[in-house]
């Protein structure tokens, strides 16, 4: 990228770095050099800027993002893009637990694997993972879509609401109230569109399976007591 504005965390504080990126006047492309696993990098951004985190990021990178296009050229710690509202976050390495937790919108792309509880409590965000996801992923996921090109760990989609989960590989086990569903043409179109947005078009949509809520836990019922 030309004319990239640089922020060197070896020379400035996190507050100075984030306040430049959070400025309402921020435009164009930015690079954060020497991130060295710092937490809370590029959080609370509000403008459609491009941000490259040039290395490993700690907890909550790109948290609560609005409109920005953030790329992490390394691994991301827990809660990457947590509560993202819009925009895009791209992790070129692996992501730790709770990736995309509670996200309301936007697209989170993870080129590697994601840890436990990926997409926990998601509320509209779309998450595409090229690798595998850990246990309890999409726990209590409310809306949005989780696409897993690899495998999923135990208890996928436990206590799921209306989010959709597509998995290409093996699912170790389904969580309470999560079941496999037949894919409609609309589902296939949604999946293809997300794979395209994530740059993962080599995976054919019909090689995935769809999982969603059986909606048996939507109302308290004595026969479900063990599931609560």
């Amino acid at each position: 990228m030309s004319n990239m504005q640089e922020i060197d965390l070896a020379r400035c504080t996190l507050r100075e770095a984030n306040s430049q990126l959070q400025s309402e006047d921020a435009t164009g492309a930015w690079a954060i050099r020497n991130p060295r696993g710092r937490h809370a990098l590029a959080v609370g951004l509000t403008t459609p800027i491009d941000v490259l985190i040039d290395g490993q990021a700690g907890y909550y990178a790109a948290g609560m993002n609005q409109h920005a296009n953030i790329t992490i050229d390394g691994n991301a710690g827990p809660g990457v893009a947590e509560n993202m509202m819009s925009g895009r976050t791209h992790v070129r390495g692996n992501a730790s637990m709770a990736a995309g937790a509670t996200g309301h919108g936007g697209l989170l792309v993870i080129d590697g694997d994601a840890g436990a509880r990926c997409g926990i409590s998601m509320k509209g965000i779309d998450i595409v993972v090229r690798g595998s996801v850990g246990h309890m992923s999409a726990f209590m996921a409310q809306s949005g879509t989780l696409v897993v090109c690899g495998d999923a760990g135990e208890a996928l989609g436990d206590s799921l609401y209306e989010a959709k989960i597509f998995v290409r590989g093996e699912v170790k086990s389904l969580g309470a109230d999560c079941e496999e569903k037949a894919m409609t043409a609309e589902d296939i179109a949604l999946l293809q569109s997300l794979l395209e947005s994530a740059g993962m078009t080599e995976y054919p949509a019909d090689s995935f399976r769809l999982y969603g809520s059986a909606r048996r836990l939507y109302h308290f019922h004595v026969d479900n007591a063990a599931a609560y």
Partner: protein
Amino acid sequence: MTDNTKKIPRTKPRFSATFDPFTISEIQRAAATGIYDIRGAGTKRKLPHFDDLLFLGASVSRYPLEGYRERCDTDVVLGTRFARKPIRLKTPVTIAGMSFGALSAQAKEALGRGASAVGTSTTTGDGGMTPEERGHSSTLVYQYLPSRYGMNPDDLRRADAIEVVVGQGAKPGGGGMLLGQKISRRVAKMRDLPEGIDQRSACRHPDWTGPDDLEIKIEELREITAWEKPIYIKVGASRPYYDVSLAVKAGADVVVLDGMQGGTAATQEVFIEHVGLPILAAIRPAVQALQDLGMHRKVQLIVSGGIRSGADMAKALALGADAVAIGTAALIALGDQSPDLAEEYARLGTVPGAYDDWQDGRDPAGITTQDPELAARLDPILGGRRIANYLSVMTMEAQAIARACGKSHLHNLEPEDLVALTMEAAAMTRIPLAGTEWYPGKQGF
């Protein structure tokens, strides 16, 4: 021979103290339904409470301040540790977190109006911030809960403070519930949920576990809000010494400590009645933790759970709190439990003073409901006036006590102004038993 059988006295029917009528009715209900009882409000059991403490007042050894003439200030600043914009309240009593969803929009508006009129704050709840609430609350604390319903950075920036909720007194260690009757279209939309479902909220936060993670989470929230907002951490009273210590370590500006008398919108009866500490038992260990860390009055302590009057407020402050919060008492001030509603309560199988089915959305007072017709019964302007009146009375009552103790500020009240009436209260608060200089655990008598 004469027949004496009619003259033999018969014993009266005797109720068991163990299997009392309430217990029997609960066993019968459980057997019939197969599910635990869910209700609103806080614990109803008798507990050691502020009534078990008294103020000594001034006499020869201390002299009082003149009522109405000599000043007794009531202001409090919250969030002085790290926040660039601490909160300044004119009186140290705030409105505790209660959600839109649990409460009607009218009730939330009334709480905002009342609190604003007397210069104090109100608090959102599990369900996000409504524009009405923000608009009518001059100082609004925005709760950050495990569910993150409605959580967004715009509202974070619009808030005056952020309260990270780890737990609440009615159910330390428990998640939330909002039953389908209250998941209206608007509530469902704010929470990104299907309309009419029985909603469960998680008991743990989705993206952090433990105090080390919490410290990082707080750094993120501060970075998103440019280090402007005070960050509170709210805990249910269970292990107050350790929880307060860890909250301070995690970077809290303010700790909110909620005793088991604190209300809830909907929780299992067994949870409400059997988990947690009464607030009286929790304050002293919390203050001790702050003192041991050299943070008393630097990290402010707000206590809640069964605060009813200016006397309760003054006692909590004398034990070392910086402010108190009210929830149930505020709902009563709005009209909950009103004798005017006796006939309607009777139709719901209850009586004024005992109504606790806040979970099922049929509140005749229009407070704990999402039914538009019931909610419309509550006039938010009149309700706001009632809240303001009640908060003013609490403040004046606390001032009257403080002046009698010779204090020119409510925060000058101190443990030495108090005595305990019971051994239990003395042990819990380390306030001497009345007429002695001793409390349980203190050497000598």
